């Protein structure tokens, strides 16, 4: 048997067994707790909620906040990260404070933010921006700092102006790190979206869909929510890695330097 096929089959064994057991439990009526819900019901719920628009509204609300918060956080993060990278003085004055504030687990900020920004979207978006800000700022800073001195010397030999140096050497060289920061920023912002929706329950969103299902003991809705959360995470991952591969194609496979 073709080895790739064999590997794929092996990998599918466990999920298949789990799905099969799940279906069997329900089909043979081995349990009757409300918690146990057949796979088919999850699918039905998905169809139903799509039909009445609830699914779409929740998804839209969550993604809208997610993007808004991420963009604000990423833009501020890039700006601050660049300033930190380019100015040693700025770094020395501001970086220690940033590192300290970063230590606080993200979600701990929500209650404070809810006092300052209320319980609605502004608070959530503020929180999301914070979540995206730190990884973007720190990775941008790191990327700019790690531009190899050797390449900067080449720019000096060819009499580059400061703008040319930044645009044509520092920025491209820092781009891989900046991408890492953006990727992490996306992930944290998505986590933060969920967290914010759990804690600040006004409005709609995937987090609210999940909380709703939980409070009513609707297992099918909760399972659906879990699947959606996973899917969104997967799509983010996919989009980010594709973008990165395309823009950074010049890296190639070798680890050879300059």
């Amino acid at each position, binding site marked *: 048997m073709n080895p790739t096929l064999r590997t794929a089959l092996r990998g599918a064994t466990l999920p298949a067994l789990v799905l099969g057991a799940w279906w069997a439990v329900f089909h043979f009526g081995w349990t009757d707790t409300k918690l146990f819900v057949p796979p088919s019901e999850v699918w039905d719920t998905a169809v139903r909620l799509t039909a009445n628009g609830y699914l779409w509204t929740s998804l839209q609300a969550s993604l809208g906040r997610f993007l808004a918060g991420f963009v604000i956080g990423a833009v501020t993060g890039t700006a601050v990260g660049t300033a930190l990278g380019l100015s040693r003085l700025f770094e020395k004055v501001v970086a220690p404070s940033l590192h300290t504030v970063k230590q606080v687990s993200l979600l701990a900020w929500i209650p404070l933010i809810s006092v300052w920004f209320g319980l609605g979207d502004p608070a959530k978006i503020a929180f999301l921006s914070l979540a995206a800000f730190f990884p973007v700022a720190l990775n941008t800073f790191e990327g700019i700092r790690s531009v190899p001195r*050797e390449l900067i010397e080449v720019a000096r*030999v*060819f*009499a*580059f102006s400061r703008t040319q140096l930044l645009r*044509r050497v520092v920025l491209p060289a820092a*781009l891989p790190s900046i991408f890492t920061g953006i990727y992490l920023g996306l992930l944290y912002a998505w986590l933060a979206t969920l967290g914010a929706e759990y804690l600040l329950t006004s409005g709609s969103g995937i987090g609210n869909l999940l909380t709703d299902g939980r409070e009513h003991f609707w297992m099918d809705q909760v399972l659906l929510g879990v699947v959606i959360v996973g899917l969104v995470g997967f799509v983010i991952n996919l989009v980010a890695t594709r973008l990165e591969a395309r823009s950074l194609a*010049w890296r*190639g496979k070798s680890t050879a330097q*300059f």
Partner: protein
Amino acid sequence: MAHAGTLEIRNLHKQYQVKGEPLPVLQDISLSIRPGEFVSIVGTSGCGKSTLLRLVIGLEADYKGEILLDGKRIVGTSLDRGIVFQEHRLFPWLDVRHNVAIGLLNAPGTEASKAKAVQEHIDLVGLKGFETAYPHQLSGGMSQRVAIARALVNRPEVLLLDEPFGALDALTRGHLQAELERIWRTEGITAILVTHDVEEAVYLGDRVVVMQPRPGRIKRIVDVPLPRTRDRGTAKFAAIKDDVLGEFGEAPRPALVSLPPAPRALADWHFAW
């Protein structure tokens, strides 16, 4: 043809501060390089030869003495002076053509004339057809050739080479040495090569400057009056090479160990067969 520059180095002193103590790196270096000349500088590590190049290219300053190009003091870096480093230092995000073109970023001229110059130099180093390749796709030797093209593309008056082939394997090195010589003759510029490979220095240089370390000083300058292109196998070549090598204290100087031939008695031949 590029205009070949005259380089004058007069009484150059350079020192660094290490832990508060001054560390002299170059001491009273004086060198006159004629236009179009190829000068090789050899020395072991620590003799300051790389520092010398970095001072001439303008990456380092803060020295005592004078460095003059065509009679004018050099100030910082300039497109008049080009350099090839030991690492190729190509920008990994640009292809070959754009890497060479980046040398012309601040050079005068139209887009068309620049594009023409870029293509000419890519052809000059023998990389025609590789214009759209990226550095990660090139071998070490090819990358270094791109670096040479980039250094030459704005026709500097002086080309500095800091152990350009040190990171390459011996076969590629030999090949590129011949290439470099051909390029130098075609462009007609002044060239200064720093190397620790004595054979390379003798092969390429009109003169070989021997430096000694701690602090860096010129020990001796050896002429290489051999016709180009040189044959490494000739006795003359070997003799000059040995002469230079002798400066590094490995082989005893012939003058010291030559003994007068002993007179041979007939009896010695008796048992020779």
